């Protein structure tokens, strides 16, 4: 039993535990125990990873385990992590952990809710540890489907429409993706060789350029849909707006990262030449995403929509940076994933908590909440500041790495796009401050809100953990940036070949 498989096993055991749990107390006990174990495990893996690296282990992936699964197709259950996956694992476990606290008072059908929630986690964790395309794709889809019911049953507003739209669009993405994966598989070895799904082995073999040209766009768009690539992002605003709190958290925080991670791990790593050739198309699209999302966010009135469009912008930046195809920008991309994951989760958690009290998400109907619920207010301000890239919080580190990295190209096209992307920091400031100003500051709009209470202890746990993580990355980014950057070296090497 490899260490990494525990990431899949623990949520599965949680499923089992939930199945047997009676009453809310037991459900919570199962969830908290499981989530804490996952969190602990991710830090154990982190520690192990860093110490292995410090000890001079230069293997591309660590903690590898490999079991033959479907021999006729040479499909393995293969796991392994590098610095990027470790970062993603930590992000996921943090958000699962806080998500549990954010949905402490789930109602109705808490058991079912958490069952699907755990299934979602299985997919997420499985995806990040997989190094076999098939396993990866399987976990990817495992993570998608629970969304339908989580939104459809426990959501709010136009939940059925949103759930359906989200599911179908993401399935559309995975349809493209599957063709891409099959294409990669059948070009993974020279004629007559044994085809393989193992990413590391495929990378050893140069795919023919013709095939790369065909399958790179498919794979990239396939993952890009989940990464909110313009114009395939429209599932995101509706989906996030309708989803229950912890689902929004997990979805925006982690699931959207699957897209970015996949783009990079599969599309770019395995098809570097096509990536070089075709990156400009997607750079344009992602460049649009970045600015477009930010502008759209400026005029929204629903808190969740604002954040959803902001996610479009920030996730656009992730893909944008990945497509810059150099180590610095890609490091920035991964850090942006981390950072966006944490802060958007924080945002959604806070929005959920505010909504739970005021029963509205329309910023026009709220005001002066800072005075009524200072804890949530301060949390919101911190999340906002992280989002607009305040130094000392994670957003700054990520964005600056992205911008500096993107600027290392010496042609006008990349430069101009980078400058366009940087303008988003101003627009972000505009919409964040607009919300903060309307929502938290000023006088209380609705007198009924005066009777509302501040955060409860479990809500505080969620918020504090997330803020702590955001600050930790923002204050001491070097180790994590080095960890990620080091793991990107093989990718960059591929690109330079």
């Amino acid at each position: 039993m490899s260490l990494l498989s525990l990431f899949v096993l623990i949520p599965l055991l949680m499923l089992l535990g939930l199945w047997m749990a009676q009453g809310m107390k037991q459900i919570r006990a199962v969830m908290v125990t499981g989530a804490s174990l996952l969190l602990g495990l991710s830090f154990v893996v982190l520690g192990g990873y860093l110490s292995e690296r410090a000890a001079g282990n230069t293997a591309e992936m660590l903690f590898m385990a490999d079991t033959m699964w479907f021999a006729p197709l040479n499909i393995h259950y293969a796991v392994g992590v590098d610095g990027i996956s470790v970062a993603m694992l930590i992000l996921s476990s943090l958000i699962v952990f806080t998500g549990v606290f954010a949905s402490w008072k789930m109602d109705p059908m808490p058991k079912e809710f958490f069952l699907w929630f755990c299934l979602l986690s299985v997919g997420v964790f499985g995806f990040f540890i997989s190094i076999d395309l098939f396993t990866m794709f399987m976990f990817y889809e495992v993570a998608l489907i629970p969304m339908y019911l989580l939104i459809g049953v426990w959501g709010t507003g136009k939940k059925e429409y949103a759930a359906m739209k989200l599911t179908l669009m993401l399935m559309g993405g995975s349809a493209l993706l599957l063709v891409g994966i099959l294409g990669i598989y059948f070009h993974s070895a020279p004629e007559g060789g044994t085809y393989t799904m193992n990413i590391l082995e495929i990378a050893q073999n140069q795919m023919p350029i013709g095939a790369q040209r065909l399958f790179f766009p498919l794979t990239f768009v396939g993952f890009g849909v989940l990464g909110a690539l313009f114009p395939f992002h429209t599932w995101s605003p509706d989906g996030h707006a309708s989803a229950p709190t912890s689902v929004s958290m997990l979805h925006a925080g982690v699931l959207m990262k699957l897209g970015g991670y996949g783009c990079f791990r599969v599309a770019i790593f395995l098809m570097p030449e096509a990536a070089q050739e075709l990156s400009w198309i997607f750079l344009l699209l992602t460049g649009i995403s970045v600015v477009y999302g930010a502008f759209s966010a400026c005029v929204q009135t629903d808190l969740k929509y604002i954040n959803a469009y902001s996610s479009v912008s920030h996730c656009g930046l992730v893909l944008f940076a990945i497509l810059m195809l150099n180590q610095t920008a890609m490091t920035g991309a991964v850090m942006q994933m981390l950072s966006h994951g944490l802060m958007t989760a924080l945002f959604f958690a806070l929005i959920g908590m505010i909504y739970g009290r005021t029963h509205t998400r329309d910023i026009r109907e709220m005001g002066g909440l800072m005075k009524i619920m200072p804890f949530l207010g301060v949390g919101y301000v911190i999340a906002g500041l992280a989002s607009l890239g305040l130094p000392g919080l994670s957003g700054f580190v990520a964005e600056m790495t992205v911008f500096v990295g993107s600027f290392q190209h010496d042609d006008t096209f990349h430069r101009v796009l980078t400058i366009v992307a940087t303008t988003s920091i101003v627009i972000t400031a505009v919409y964040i401050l607009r919300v903060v100003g309307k929502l938290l500051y000023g006088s209380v709009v609705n007198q009924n809100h005066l009777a509302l209470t501040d955060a409860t202890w479990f809500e505080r746990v969620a918020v504090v953990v997330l803020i702590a993580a955001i600050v930790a990355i923002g204050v001491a980014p070097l180790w994590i940036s080095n960890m990620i950057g080091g793991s990107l070296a093989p990718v960059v090497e591929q690109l330079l070949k």
Partner: protein
Amino acid sequence: MDYTNFLLMRDELSLVAVMVLLLLYDLFGSARSLRHFQLVACLLFGLHTLICLFPHRPVEAFGGMYIYKPMLTIVKSILNVGTLLVFMQAHTWLESERTVIRRGEFYFLTLSTLLGMYFMMSAGNFLLFFIGLETASIPMATLAAFDKYKRKSAEAGAKYILSAVFASALSLYGISLIYGTTGTLYFDDVAVRITGNPLQIMAFVFFLVGMCFKISIVPFHLWTADVYEGAPTNVTAYLSVISKGSAVFVLMTILYKVFGNIVMQWQGILYGLVIVTITVANLFAIRQKNLKRFLAFSSISQAGYILLGVISGNALGMTSLVFYVLVYMVSNLGAFGVISVIEQRTGKVMMDDYNGLYKTNPYLSLVMMFSLFSLAGIPPFAGFFSKFFIFAAAASEGYYILVLIALLNTILSLYYYLLVVKAMFINPSEQPIAPFRSDNYTRVSLVACMAGVFLLGILSVVYQQISLFSFGM
């Protein structure tokens, strides 16, 4: 003539034995003992299933008329298991007041069709193939019309028999032309003498559409929805999985073995048929309100996916196809099992009737949902794996665009599967179906289906076992 040849047909003999025993029991059993008919039938058939489970060495009997390959054991076992599951699900229906006296006939007719399928699959000659085909389809018409007091059932029977005869007439016409151009009916000899002249190709097309009728490929599928809707639910289940599964397998082996010389042509034809089938069926399915009809269109589109395994023409295709059929069988039977038991209890088959089902019958809803997810190809259910492999098979020969179209269609299909899930889990209902306890036969069969849905994919041993016996062109 060497009569020992008969002994080589172990599976068929065993099946005939079961049929005869059941017939005799039905005829001569006392009314008291007949109460256990269901149990006896299932046990006997279960025994047969066990017997057929073990492959033996490849044989040819009657001068190549009858051919056995280990692959057949797998396919037959799949069909056997499926039939057994249908038998178990049919319990409630068969024990109902109007059907109870005819339950012996049900078994006999069903097993006759199964026997026909056996022969069809083992055939090495067009004659045996034809006899098997007809043996499989004529009793099917009577099964469709089994609920003889129901107008819909009678209509279904009529539509089935007429369509079937029409199709087999065209198919026979094709066979006659093949005979005329090659001078033989033996598969191996025909294969050599197929040169691809226009007459042969026309003959081949006529033959092919007959098979397409059985598999319900668009545009030869039009009977499907009506018959599925009208026939008793358990018959529909049987029709949709067993009949279709066997036909697909036969089609594949014949295409591989007999028409290998005109592979370009039939791949082209299948290419078009797959696209049309999947798309049209999905478009029809999104509007359906009657769940049986809904599953009919779903099964048509599934047939399109199954053809993706045929088109590749290699061993991977065969493995994936057989695996797909197996998974499709457990998933579809899971869904039909739920529909059947609810129809028997409440008479409701419309999608709106299922609103709020999860609140009252959580386990049935879960079974339904898992089955539908499996049909839609969602992991970790087996359907994901089977779909993946079938796409891999098609992609292995470079049919990427076809795969892409098929995959984009899965979005559409996911949409309508989710409609059912939505009805059960999300939609509120004034009058949900009241909670009830289903009988043990149904329960066992549903549990078996769920075991299949969950384990067939994850436990790779099944797929690997199938792949051991697969062969390509």
